């Protein structure tokens, strides 16, 4: 268990190093950016200064190694069985201090779309709070709820639904 985690951390670290040495030229898309719709009001999303170490493709290659966090029906509570996955992500972020994390919250198709947007956000925020508890800086973690708009599995039964009640990860 512990050995497995250490091994995967080493692999992630190696991948991060490999991409860091080759991929720092491309400017990442993450961040506030230029608002080509004009007339924007409100606070831009995306702290400045992150996402410089690795290029976006390589970051997503690392992020795809993180396993999703799964939730119970209508719940945003993090189950004990999911904690080791989150510890792995926290370790990676601490080993790569210039990398930021986006937590995507998702729901199964049951319930109204609008309620599921809020529920998905609560799931993402629960993951964020857990990672902050593990020592990751709050300004490095953004949340993004997709509600039921982006299912991982397209079936209409519990086996699909349980795959869709999840948090996924991307790096910037």
């Amino acid at each position: 268990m512990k050995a497995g985690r250490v091994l995967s951390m080493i692999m992630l670290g190696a991948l991060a190093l490999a991409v860091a040495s080759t991929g720092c030229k491309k400017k990442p898309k993450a961040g506030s950016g230029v608002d080509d719709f004009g007339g924007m009001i409100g606070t831009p999303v995306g702290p400045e200064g992150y996402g410089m170490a690795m290029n976006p493709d390589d970051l997503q290659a690392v992020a795809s190694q993180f396993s999703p966090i799964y939730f119970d029906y209508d719940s945003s509570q993090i189950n004990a069985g999911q904690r080791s996955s989150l510890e792995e992500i926290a370790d990676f972020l601490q080993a790569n201090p210039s990398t930021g994390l986006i937590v995507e919250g998702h729901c199964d198709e049951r319930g109204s779309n609008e309620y599921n947007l809020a529920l998905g956000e609560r799931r993402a925020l629960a993951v964020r709070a857990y990672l902050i508890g593990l020592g990751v800086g709050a300004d490095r973690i953004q949340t993004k709820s997709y509600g039921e708009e982006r299912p991982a599995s397209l079936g209409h039964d519990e086996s699909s639904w349980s795959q869709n009640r999840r948090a996924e990860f991307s790096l910037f």
Partner: protein
Amino acid sequence: MTRNIWTFITCGLLFSAAAVHAQSADIIISKGTDKTTIDASPFGASDPAGRMFIQVLTADLVRSGWFARGAQGASEYILSGSAGGGGGFVAQCRVAARGRSGTVFDRSYRGDANEVRRLAHEAADDILKALTGRDGMASARIALVGTLSGHKELYMADADGQGLVQLTGHKSVSITPSWHPDGDRLYYTSYAKGFPAIYELNLRGGSIDRVANYAGLNTGGVVSPDGRWMAMILSRDGNPELYVRRMPNGDPVRLTSTRRSAEASPTWSPDSRQIAFVSDMSGRPQVYVVGREGGQPRRLTLRGSENVSPDWGPNGLIAYSSRIGGRYQVCVLDPRSGDVKQITAPDADYEDPSWAPDSRHIAATRSIAYRSSVYLLDTLGDPPVALIDQKGDWTAPAWSPGR
């Protein structure tokens, strides 16, 4: 007929359930309304545009729920006049009551050849108003979400489902349209620039502005009927909560503080003083109401495991979607008395209700076997009518304000 029997049974069930929960239930038995007959056969159409005018006009009168096509010589009202093109379209509409001399309605409509449908909708609302004193819905429009292009985009249709136009081309996910009371602007949530933000689309100029883009969730942007406030759901303080901002861009003020629950789907009372919304603070999603200035939210839906998507109509009644017997059904709640009335049958799931400006009809998403379309529901019992006959899934209808 079967429908009437079913409605009666359901109402019985509602009655007993409501009694248990001490929520009074004055259930109106849905059997449709008596129709006033109108005979349009004397109307003269000189060309295809004229025929389209009278066809759209009579279909609107029937859809209003208050009229039925009547036989020649045996109808209460007679619609006569003429319509046609030839250097601009002109329609002359006259309505007379049978057995009485003179006309009760006499008006002409002029426009370009491409305005025939709009003029017919206008005439239908004018005739309804003149004959019954009631506001119509024929001139209003419906914003909705469709997947015709392969992405969820905003569309707009006339009240009869015709004239469908695509409004957005974000090639992303764009959802939950709502109208500004001026009828010229729409608000919606889109991932067009990555994170869910609230956008404003101006139908006159075609411009799109991002109007709320705080960290986390930005959704549920709904402008009050007086045009002065926007309610919205934000998670910028760490949890999805209900906020209000002064239009156009005041700083959002938080109205709820429910660290352990989520808020969604705000909708304004007709007097712009209260907001109904969904919260799962009881453990399950239910409809609550809170004053615009904040305070302790009051729970409005007392029965059922899930009550969502409220829409507070111009008539003061709140339509919402309620999970009953494993299906979503549209119910109408009077927040003053607590009376509840279910208006759909369990032949399908009915979600996302939106009151029409006639205060009688409701547009809703109707789903069978995971395919969705938009239907017109009648709170007085006429059967549901399909509004959109295009490919793809159609959801989240939002009626524009009346004229």
